[in-house]
């Protein structure tokens, strides 16, 4: 784990120093001193990330006795499938909010998540899925005066 993390940090640092910073950070042409340039800080951070990555990789390569281990779960395949499902749920939620409105999207996201993790209380899940977004809507829209997205279909008062 430590070795993989270290290699990942080194690769990220190389990418940051050689590509990301020169291409994605703009600097005025009249900056005389490099320490005052907008480029300076990202370069320093990139370099330090590389050094830390090197340290992690070395300690992983030497076989660090303190290397942490994650607790195993009974069904890693199903767990991974659920994670993919949840990532898709997040993407759909993000996309649907401006179209369906935050309240309806939240209701669907609540239900989808509750059933994704196989809730043993489906009736309570349905009640909460309807009630929680409505209560939050009432608070944020009418107390906090936040313009909660209403969507294009059903609009709430």
């Amino acid at each position: 784990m430590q070795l993989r993390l270290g290699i990942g940090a080194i690769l990220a640092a190389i990418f940051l120093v050689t590509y990301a910073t020169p291409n994605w950070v703009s600097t005025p042409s009249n900056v005389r001193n490099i320490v005052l340039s907008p480029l300076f800080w990202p370069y320093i951070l990139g370099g330090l990330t590389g050094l830390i990555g090197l340290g992690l990789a070395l300690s992983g390569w030497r076989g660090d006795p303190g290397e942490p281990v994650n607790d195993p779960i009974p069904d890693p395949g199903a767990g991974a499938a659920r994670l993919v499902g949840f990532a898709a749920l997040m993407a759909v939620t993000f996309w649907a909010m401006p179209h369906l409105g935050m309240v309806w999207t939240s209701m669907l996201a609540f239900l989808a998540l509750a059933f994704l993790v196989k809730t043993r209380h489906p009736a309570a899940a349905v009640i909460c899925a309807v009630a929680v977004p409505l209560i939050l809507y009432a608070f944020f829209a009418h107390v906090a005066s936040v313009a909660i997205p209403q969507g294009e279909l059903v609009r709430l008062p």
Partner: protein
Amino acid sequence: MSLYDSVMAGLALVGNLEAFLSLAIGIVIGVVGGAIPGISATMAVALALPFTFPMAPINGILLLLGVYKGGIFGGSIPAILIKTPGTPASSATILDGHPMAERGEAGRALGMALWASCTADFVSNLALIFFAGFLASFALSFGPPEFFALILFSLTIIAGVSGESLLRGALSALLGLLLATIGLDLVYGTNRFTFGDPNLMGGLNFIAVLIGLFAIPEVINMVWHPTGHVGKVQKLGSKWVTFAEYKRCFRSIIRGSFIGVFLGSIPGIGAAPAAFLSYSEARRKSPNKANFGKGEIEGVAASEAGNNGVAGATLIPLLALGVPGDVITAIIIGAFMVHGLQPGPMMFVLNVDIIYGLFIGLILSSGILFIVGGLAIRGFRPVADIPKRILMPMVLVLCIYGVFAVNNNIFDVGVMFAMGWVGFVMGRYHIPAAPFLIAFILGPLLEDNFRQSMLMSGGSPDILLRGPITWFFWTLTVISIVAITRGTLRADRAGG
């Protein structure tokens, strides 16, 4: 403004029902949040933050401080009753609290936890009141080089002690600093990693990052392993703590409170080490040391005094220097910012009414915690029975609304989702999230002070060592790095 005027100005702010209710509601939310395994005090504060937006600044901040204090005590309830700490700070409470619960003395253990918590909280609040003003007046003489050295020291110690490894803590802090570079450059206003997107020009929204980092990974963890935690709730029993027992444990409680105050005032240490240190000191000095670990009430008192002693003291660096000492105060600094306030020495000059209002509110909070905590002990069972697979979808929906409400921007919800996955991956690789968040907050401040120093000196780095204050912080930084590295190497050798 004289001290009398300042106190009166503070009283004018908090001497009303609204402020009192904000504090009380905050404590209730905190105790309930801390008592639910999976919703730590940190998550409770993060989730409560968006609800403070429409409130007056003092009421919003008092509510969050109430959540913080309630959450730290609330964590002891599941620690004693179901052997699962509601917050990491309550881990030491399990050692003696749960054996007492197994003997049918849960009510007695919880009662002592409450008394010790309230006493330590009170001591901690007094320490805050006495030391924050003094430290702030000292910090008024800080310039950019001094602040740069101070922030660097804070980040070093936070990265070093927050997790299991200095390297992983440092990587976390560097990632936070990198993320903080997104947006327009502080001096020239040019784009940095914005890809021409106007949503990124102001930088990533702090609240989206923090909720994404601390609440969403809990939801993802539950998706990964939905039946991860099921615990058996012990009965309270008929025995309750007596005043004689409180008196017997008083020395350990006061010692633990001071340990908490001392460790809490150093950025990065946090409540869990304070609880363990207080516990081990109580065991070392107690005539009943043989009973420790087998259900000794003094052990519960010491660990709870240790972790609650931290609660007020972590606000010392926050209010006096503008440096959050732990994750929860990092979230609270967000509340200050949302309300247009900047914690730090200048706040003691410009917003002295708010400072004294907070002090008065904090003193009140110990009493309110005593009442709310007593009720929560008796009403824990329904809280423990909330199904996690209903609770987490609720958390997801709360996060969506809360993050959107900050800027009325759906982009922030996307940032929160992305940060949730970052937090989950960090958790799988045992990279602590606290240095990431604190570095993300302090990053612009660190860079700004560095570049101001360079502008002042015409690019000469000598200015970073210009006086005794900078030397003091640089020395502390070097000592911390050496001590943490030596500790890590020693632990590795012992493990190998």
